[in-house]
């Protein structure tokens, strides 16, 4: 039903699954030019191609938000379910019982996961559902969309923009304390690291949480006209017209981050994120160390990036249920409806 996209040019390369890179693509993005999510989508396509994944073995899931629109922009050949704001984890949990041989690939945002979706996020983590769970997080250091995000840092007074009064939510910390078996963070402009972590997440049996700081290019949010007007005036930018989205370039790290390096990255609204890549000797299988690193990062206003924690010995959700090998959705009546003789047995069990 989904049309294969036309291929430009001469014979394309194919991977070990016999598929070309085009077979991993989706529709053209309708997100803003320069949006971090677009870069992430590209890395997903590349990672799947390079890992020789068969698209029909993936199910895409998303909630609601800009990030949640992105599954349309990759893996057209995979089934997808773009569900309700904050409720994607439950859809994914139930769906993956239909065919337990399939892998989930979920994209969510900071509001979808850490605000409305906080409850379902915690529980999908503890159930260790077998899927990659990407949060395309553009809420850090706040006000990138005109609203404070749950992940915005407290007390941070951005230039002329007021201060966030609430304590922040660290998605990686939340995942870790809920006993996640895989926790990682990266930055959308660090394409190489993003792709590597996506591959690591795909190889993980269980829930792989990947928090990707993914800068937003749009600040003239109509819900916060005062902010944008004031900001615009001070910066003498043509932002009096609040529906105008200035074209922006994506924020890309010119130079790859080294292990242990701390780097400040300016975002489009003038705010700054401080990324700290994990040290060379860091052991991601040590949970206590992972907690320490995240707590230390919070104290210092860093965002720790890299593979923060991994634990490979826990079963994923469907494994706990000792299901038959045949995917449940292929079973027929003989497997599902008890035999006629059983009705007498049931009646005999009643009084």
């Amino acid at each position, binding site marked *: *039903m*989904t049309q*294969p996209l036309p291929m430009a040019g001469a014979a394309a390369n194919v991977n070990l699954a016999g598929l070309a890179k085009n*077979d991993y693509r989706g529709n053209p993005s309708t997100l803003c030019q320069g949006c971090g999510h677009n870069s992430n989508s590209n890395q997903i396509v590349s990672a799947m191609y390079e890992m020789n994944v*068969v*698209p*029909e073995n993936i*199910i*895409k899931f998303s909630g609601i938000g800009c990030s949640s629109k992105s*599954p*349309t922009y990759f893996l*057209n*050949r995979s*089934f*997808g*379910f*773009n*569900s*309700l704001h904050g*409720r994607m*984890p*439950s*859809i*994914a*949990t*139930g*769906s*993956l*019982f*239909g*065919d337990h*041989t*399939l892998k989930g690939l979920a994209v969510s945002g900071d509001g979808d996961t850490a605000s409305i979706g906080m*409850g*379902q996020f915690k*529980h999908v983590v503890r159930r260790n559902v077998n899927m990659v769970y990407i949060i395309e997080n553009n809420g850090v250091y706040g006000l990138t969309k005109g609203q404070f995000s749950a992940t915005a840092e407290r007390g941070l007074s951005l230039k002329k923009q007021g201060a966030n009064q609430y304590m922040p939510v660290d998605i990686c910390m939340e995942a870790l304390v809920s006993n996640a078996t895989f926790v990682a963070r990266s930055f959308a402009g660090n394409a190489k690291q993003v792709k590597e972590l996506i591959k690591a997440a795909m190889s993980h049996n269980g829930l792989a949480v990947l928090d990707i700081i993914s800068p937003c290019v749009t600040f003239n949010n109509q819900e916060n006209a005062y902010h944008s007007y004031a900001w615009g005036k001070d910066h003498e930018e043509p932002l009096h017209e609040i529906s105008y989205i200035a074209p922006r370039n994506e924020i890309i790290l010119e130079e790859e981050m080294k292990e242990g390096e701390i780097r400040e990255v300016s975002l489009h609204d003038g705010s700054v994120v401080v990324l700290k890549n994990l040290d060379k000797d860091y052991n991601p299988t040590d949970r206590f160390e992972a907690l320490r690193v995240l707590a230390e990062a919070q104290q210092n206003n860093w965002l720790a990036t890299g593979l923060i924690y991994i634990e490979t010995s826990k079963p994923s959700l*469907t494994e706990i*249920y*000792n*299901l*038959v*090998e045949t*995917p*449940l*959705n*292929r*079973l027929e*009546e003989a*497997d*599902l*409806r*008890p035999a*006629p003789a*059983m*009705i007498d*047995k*049931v*009646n005999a069990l*009643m*009084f």
Partner: protein
Amino acid sequence: MDKVVNDFSIIVGTKNGSGSSTANNTLLRAIFKMGIPVSGKNLFPSNIQGLPTWYTIRANKDGFTARREENEIVIAMNPDSFARDLASVAPGGAFFYADDIKQPITRADVAIYPMPVKQIVRGDPGIPSDFRDLVGNMVYVGILAQTVGLDLEKIYAALNFHFKGKQKPIDMNFNTVKASAEWAKVNLPKKDPFFLEPMDKTDGLIMADGNTAAAVGSIFGGVQFAAWYPITPASSLAESLNDYFPLLRKREDGKHTYAVLQAEDELAAIGMAIGAGWSGLRSMTSTSGPGLSLMTEFAGLAYYAEIPVVVWDVQRIGPSTGLPTRTSQADLTFVNSMGHGDTQSVILLPGSVEECFEFGWRAFDVAEQLQAPVFVLSDLDMGMNQWMSKPFQYPDTSMQRGKVLWDKDIEELKGNWGRYLDKDGDGIPYRTVPGNKHPMSSYFTRGTGHDENARYTEDSSVWLRNMDRLRKKYETARTYVPAPVSYTKLGATVGIVGYGSTEAAILEAIHQLDTEHGIKADFMRIRALPFPQEVADFIQQYDQILVVEQNRDGQLKQLLTVEYPDQAANLKSVAFGDGMPASAKWVREGILAKYKQPAEQR
């Protein structure tokens, strides 16, 4: 004193948590085993231990087993409700009480039977001291048995069933029953007219509760996935799935063809159930009012994205905790339009324990054929009480999976198909599910506007087309859902309409209207929405149609009025929702209040 045989009600007043339910179920089952039509209603408070609770049993030789508001025999075990219990005895009735309760006996018109409960219990050294209160309930079983002629053998059979054949508790309890009966034989001369005598009216019947029936029916429906969150009175439905799955879907290799998940809340429960239904599984959840409210957003999505899922609502009263142990039929209009925007829900309305079983499996056929959520509205009275029932019948059709395209189907179509395409003209499209490996099989599901190929669109005309097709599908649904059942007689001047578990009360009321008031009424019990043609045919026949239901606002009557505006003037409401299981008395009085004598009979 004239004997009153097999036609009276008993109510037992005890403390919640004192273990009287074993005794009460034993009484109920023993009477059933004697062949006498009987019903039992647990009137329990929202409390785990300590508050007063009542159990009412009605024996009726003619098969009228709806709860009665009067009780001839009252057994008072609880000092906290003693005065109230004594006042409630019908004139000429019998009052049994635990004699350690020292409160004034102020009735001269009833037979008074003090019961030396503590004395009898202490007289048995085989009862451990921490079991005394529990086993003490068997004293009233034994004394009542002796007084009214309840067969001790049948009591034994009931205890054997309850304790699953475990001899020690059976013996401990039965010994107390026997000892109490002996004591009463010697010390308690009969002063009341009430007797139980064996009949054969329950031959071939079983006793079960609606939630167990629903669970077992669902398993016979091939259910593969259930997600749930605990809530009174629905919890026992999911718990019964856990009980019966291992027995009914047992495999040599010990592996499972099903999964039951206790979710973190009802939002997650319905989300998981919908996810599973979307990926091709027979999938369900079960809840009550407050949980259902939480499920609203997801229900609207499932309607629009056309995903099969079965949702059982075991109705109770009130928001938040409300009256969680009281029954109602008050979720009908809510479910009918559940979901913001234009929604029309498919609803099944079982009216008996055997229908809970039948709709348990049929709901999946309806949901998968229509590719829609199906809501099954039961209620606390039916779900949690033991009812006489015809034995469960094996499904009479094979599992109907609906229009699903697998790999070879897509291949045959050369990839030419549309998820929301009305190929057959009935409004029901074809779907694929994940796991289909054909490269043209996938599609993106979402709540946004979509065209026939599930592509994202904001085009108004496409939106309208899709919404119209959903309405067409609802019309198609009329022929997929259970038809109503009706009871008609010659010369009926009024049509009574109802749904769910009020049938026993309505039929008894109709009988009384006929024999005592000369009013002949026909009765139709609606079993689903959208209304099949039979509903229109029925209501057209009468100048007055009285819609009987357990809610305040006459919800079914509202829906009938909207559906059949030409009959609006003839539709009247007999609506009453106090949370108690329906009695013939309120039905009869409600009908009489609204009934108009036809002109020629005045």
